[in-house]
């Protein structure tokens, strides 16, 4: 597999971004990589914009992705995908959960939610992969598993066998949610490849 890479996760506090980054990291570690992840807790988690940086390679020093060097962006919310644009480079791939979460200024009628975000990304030559994580999770019977659908989509872009991810999910997801999560993962993986 690629000897090193940078994956940026972004979205809104409460969307399960930390678990998604965790599952991905464990799949990388299981493939013999060094990996570091950086995230922010506390005030920032209360419904605000959140990010997690995941870096892997033979030896990782800095836990932070430099601007212009994220190979993959996994955006849990449409507008958040655009917020992290400076982290991307021309060859970056962007998986976008097609969900809109209104920021306070929009929810209170003070501003309008921006249109055409996916076009803004693809106009810049970025490969954009929209995934309806919420829809996939709802279909499987648990809307809270949307984050695992996105991990499924991401897994299709990483040179790690599907089985490695499935093993990690089996280890880390509580037994009573396992079936739903495995279904959602597989559906997400299909969506990532479409």
């Amino acid at each position: 597999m690629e000897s090193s890479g940078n994956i940026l996760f972004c979205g809104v506090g409460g969307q399960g971004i930390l678990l998604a980054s965790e599952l991905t990291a464990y799949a990388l570690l299981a493939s013999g990589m060094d990996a570091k992840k950086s995230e922010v807790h506390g005030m920032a988690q209360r419904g605000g914009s959140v990010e997690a940086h995941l870096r892997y390679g033979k030896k990782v020093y800095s836990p932070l992705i430099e601007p212009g060097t994220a190979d993959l962006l996994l955006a849990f919310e449409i507008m958040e995908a655009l917020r992290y644009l400076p982290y991307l480079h021309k060859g970056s791939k962007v998986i976008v959960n097609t969900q809109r979460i209104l920021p306070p200024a929009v929810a209170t009628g003070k501003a309008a939610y921006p249109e055409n975000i996916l076009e803004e990304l693809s106009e810049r030559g970025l490969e954009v992969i929209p995934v309806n994580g919420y829809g996939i999770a709802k279909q499987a019977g648990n809307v809270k598993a949307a984050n695992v659908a996105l991990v499924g989509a991401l897994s299709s872009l990483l040179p790690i066998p599907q089985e490695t991810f499935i093993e990690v999910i089996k280890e880390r997801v509580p037994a009573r949610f396992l079936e739903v999560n495995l279904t959602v993962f597989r559906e997400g993986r299909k969506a990532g490849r479409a």
Partner: protein
Amino acid sequence: MTKPATSLENLWLSGNEALAMGAKEAAVTVASGYPGTPSTEILENLSRYEGVYTEWAPNEKVGLEVAIGASFAGARALATMKHVGLNVAADPLFTASYTGVRGGLVIVVADDPSMHSSQNEQDSRNYADAAKLPMLEPSDPGEAKEFLKIAYDISEEFDTPVLLKSCTRVAHVKGIVVPGEIAVSKVKIGIEKAPAKFVMLPGNARQRRLAVAARQDRLGEFAETFAENKIEWGDKKRGFITAGVSYLYVKEAFPEASVLKLGLVNPLPEKMIRELADGVEELIVVEELDPYLETRIKAMGIDCRGKELIPAIGELSTAVVRKAVSGEAGPVEFAPVELIPRPPNMCAGCPHRGLFYNLNRLKVFVSGDIGCYTLGFLPPLSAMDSCVCMGASIGIAHGMSKALGEAGKGKVVSVIGDSTFIHSGLNSLINTVYNKDNATIIILDNRITAMTGHQPNPASGSTLMGEPANSIDFEELCRAVGVKHVRTVNPHEIEEIYKVLKEEIDRDEVSVVITRFPCVLVPEEKKRVKYPFFTDTDECTGCTACLKLGCPAIQWEPLTPEEAEAQGRKKSQKGVARIDEVTCVGCGQCLPLCKFEAINKGEEK
């Protein structure tokens, strides 16, 4: 405990998980502290290990005093806190430097450069110098665990408390950690009287001051041979001196350069520094925040550059270090796009919202405090006018009241959370009563320390180790310190709380209003059967009254004049407010605000 990675013997842990493991491996048996981002998870994780007593203290000063006591009894002891917490604990810290220890004593302090979740950024290394204490600074989780174990050996060998400095990018970074053996302390637990060492009367303290000076000399020699201070020779054109996370950024930006990595940042290994300085053409000091190393290296008469290149404000990163040193901007291809900001917000159903909605209506000056409720500052609630530090709200309101005199009557209130009140608000309440103020103090009692992730406190009724405990009766406590008027209200009852606040603010005596309702994120509240509200949008006139709550479950849907007309509304109606039933927890705050019966109670969820 986090399980090991699939194919590794090693663990993949956050810095805070690693520090907890380090404490266990260092044979720590007593640990105390106060929650504060980014330090909180150290004690939470440590509490899951067998054989370690852990607790949340009411504040950092108490936490450190508990740890000092455990050390006096011969136990290896740990105190944890965030950078601003060390200000609170500074008093015992400076004198514990004189008493020294029996069992090893380590204070972990976690800085938050860039203020991700803090009211200031400060460089805790300055405390090491000021209190004359050794300080270790790890760069990642693996080192954090090892350095903590080393810290206990230094503590017992040199008879000193030891500071270990963490930061956001160590505490909340996950990396590979190698489990190790559990250490054995040479010190036996038991009472051993040593009054000349532990009773800091001036006569004894003067003797101990000399012991501290001798200790500093010995530690200076130790620093020269300490294995975690090391020169990595590379290209001799440029040498760096650095420590902690800054080392990682230097290694990534300039992998070819020579680097002196300092594991111990106080005292400094002068000979080693000279060796690097003499061996390279150009010497650069890379450190976050203050020019702590740079100032000391320059005082040695060594020519170097530091803050003239490296920013003194905010976190560093590989990109920042590279640009500062070489002028190269890095590979940025896409400029940022201007977007609507997404600030944090109180949760849907947060009991604080009802209070701040009313404080906004009352147009008073709100002296605020530290917690989730500081978000009451943000629009549309816009009901916080000052916030300085933990527990400050009551004292600041009192000072304003004394300065304003008659003109201030009924114009200033203070708001403070349950945990913050216990932390350091109580003293100020006593002062307010004793010094005859007529203030209104509002205690936002959600039964938990919410912002840092729901730690129990002395009002919660349970301990860090999960045992049932006394739950402070705030009403009785306030009466005991002399407050005659104490009233408890449910902050979800918007109209009732307005009435109560108005009466108490107008009162010519000190009064306390307790707004009591559990945080929506505590497990019992999460499990409670909910009846979310829904909007009958046909009835909604777009008056926007409910939007003034700023609840994330209420969303505005704009309408064009044509759309409004097509829906049989007035052409001038600009939109409708719709409750998102998935997000709504049925707190009911919005119900009395709707005069058009558009908001209705829904089915159980």
